[in-house]
């Protein structure tokens, strides 16, 4: 009987523990899901940022325009006079 009672108490405690574990696991899973979502979002963002060709294109465009402007500015007035 004591064993049964202890067993029953343990059973109830175990049940509670199981339930607690269950709830905790559920919560953990939810958190893990959220974290995975956030991680995927972050990966997506990082990839998007790293693979964003806008900056590189803009830099190349600015370099090209700068070079063209430099060429224009470096032209001497004598060439203009010759022209």
């Amino acid at each position: 009987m004591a064993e049964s009672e202890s067993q029953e108490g343990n059973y109830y405690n175990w049940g509670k523990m199981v339930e607690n574990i269950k709830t905790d696991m559920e919560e953990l899973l939810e958190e893990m899901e959220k974290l995975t979502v956030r991680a995927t979002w972050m990966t997506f963002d990082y990839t998007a940022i790293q693979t964003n060709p806008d900056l590189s294109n803009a830099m190349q465009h600015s370099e090209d325009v700068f070079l063209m402007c430099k060429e224009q500015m470096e032209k001497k007035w004598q060439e203009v006079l010759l022209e």
Partner: protein
Amino acid sequence: MNELFSKLYKEAEKIKQWKLTVETELNQKERKLQENKKTIEAQNKAIQELQFENENLHLKLEDEICENKDLLKEAAASRHLCNLLKETCTRFTEKTSKHEQEKAETIQLYEELHSNIERMTAAFEELRVQAENDRSEMSFKLKEEAEKVDKFEKECKLEVSQKEKQISALTIERDEKDDVIKDIKAQLQTSQNKIADLMEAKLHHEEMLKESQVSKEHLRAELEEAKMSLQKAEVTQKNLETELQTRVKTLIQVTGEKEEQEEECKKMKALLAALTEEFETSVANLKSLLQEEQNRLKKYEDDSKLLTLELQKKSAELEEMTKVKCDKEVQLEELSETLKEFQDLKAQLTSTAEKEQDYLKQLVTLKTDLEQEALRNEQLTVYLSKLSLEKEQTAQEKNAVAAEVKKLQEQQEDSKKKEENTKQLVENLEEANSQLRNELESLKQKMAKTGEEMRSALDEREENMNNLKKQVENKTKCIEELQQENKVLPKKLTAESKKSNTYEGKVNKLQIEMEKMNKQHKEAADIYQKDIETRKGNENKLREEVEKMRLLCDETAMIQRQTDARCQHKITEMMALMEKHKGRDFPACCGLQCVIPC
């Protein structure tokens, strides 16, 4: 009744039906009772079986309780793991939050960089476009200015050629005028020689006049002596009436001859009057010539006005040119070349100026010569005045001589009257009278000769005077022409010098403007270079920042990869644990199993 029967019938039917139903129900209930009995028996059997099973289950439960204890332990361990997972999750959430912040910051930085880069590109493009536009405009303006400078050079060259031509023509004219001046000088010398000769002739004539006056005085003395002789011979005149008549006749003949001479004198006077008239006509002609020359002067003045107008137009054009040039930019090398050409032109202009100065010197010498000639002309005029005075004196002497001749005639008439009154002349005085009369005749002839000589001399003098007047007039004309030309030449020279000065000033202005423009261009180039350098610095800074950001991104990527690896490891561990839990307790872990695949 029918209704009642119907109703009774219906109720009877209803009762029958109720009976049937009750009977059926009873049957059913009996069947159910039997079935229930059977079921009870079966259930009793099942209960027995169940009891057996319960005993088995009791055994199993005991086993399971032992397993549950183990499971509890494992659950505690799993709980620890769960706590650790929670901690890791919290850390992960924190890191993710940090990463998100950094991501937001990186996104902002990227946006800023992008915007800056776009601004830079726009600015560079604007600069390029402005540079192109400015360069194109400058090229067009330079081309136009080059064309205008070429045109101006051509015009200047044409003007220089024209001026050179004018200078050559003026030199030719000067040479001609020098020749004319030389001729005039020769004529002056000849006229001077003639004047000297005329002076000598004058002196001779004066001497002759003096001698004639002396002779006249002698004659007067002799006449007085004759009068005395006649007075002395009044007594003897009465015997000589016939001789007196013959003498009277002879006297009449002499008077006739004198009248003829007087007529000749009158004719000569008429001729002189005609000559004076001719002189007057010549004077009128000369006056007309003077008027014509005045008209020519007016024409020249008009030409000079036209030239001044042209000069004004040219000056206006020059002013316009200066305005145009002031508005434009200046060239370097071509203008230097033009400057070199201008220097050459300057040299030419200096040479021409030197030539002009030489010409001016020549003009000054000519002026001195002309002044000397003017002085000589004045002297000639003085001599002419003197000659005119002498002429007047000779005329007066002529008049005096004529008056004296009249007086002699009157005296002769008186002598005639006296002879008529006295009629008694002396035979002894015939020879004396005849001699005296012969002497008188000779003297009269001499007087006539002298008068004729004087007239001829006067005619010659008048002719010479006329020639001299003509020469003087011609000389004055030439002098006036030369003076006008001399007046015009310095003006032209001054105009040309002014033009050269204006050109020099313009050249200097253009040089100054060139220097200013060069300085401005240099300053603009320096400014542009500085801007380029600053922008290069900014670019370098931006590149450094971009590199830094790239490094940060790499680091974040690495961190992310590490976190991903850690998460994967932990996930695998969790999966393993879960699989272990799956294998041990199915019913206890059913909830977990239900949770895990989710």
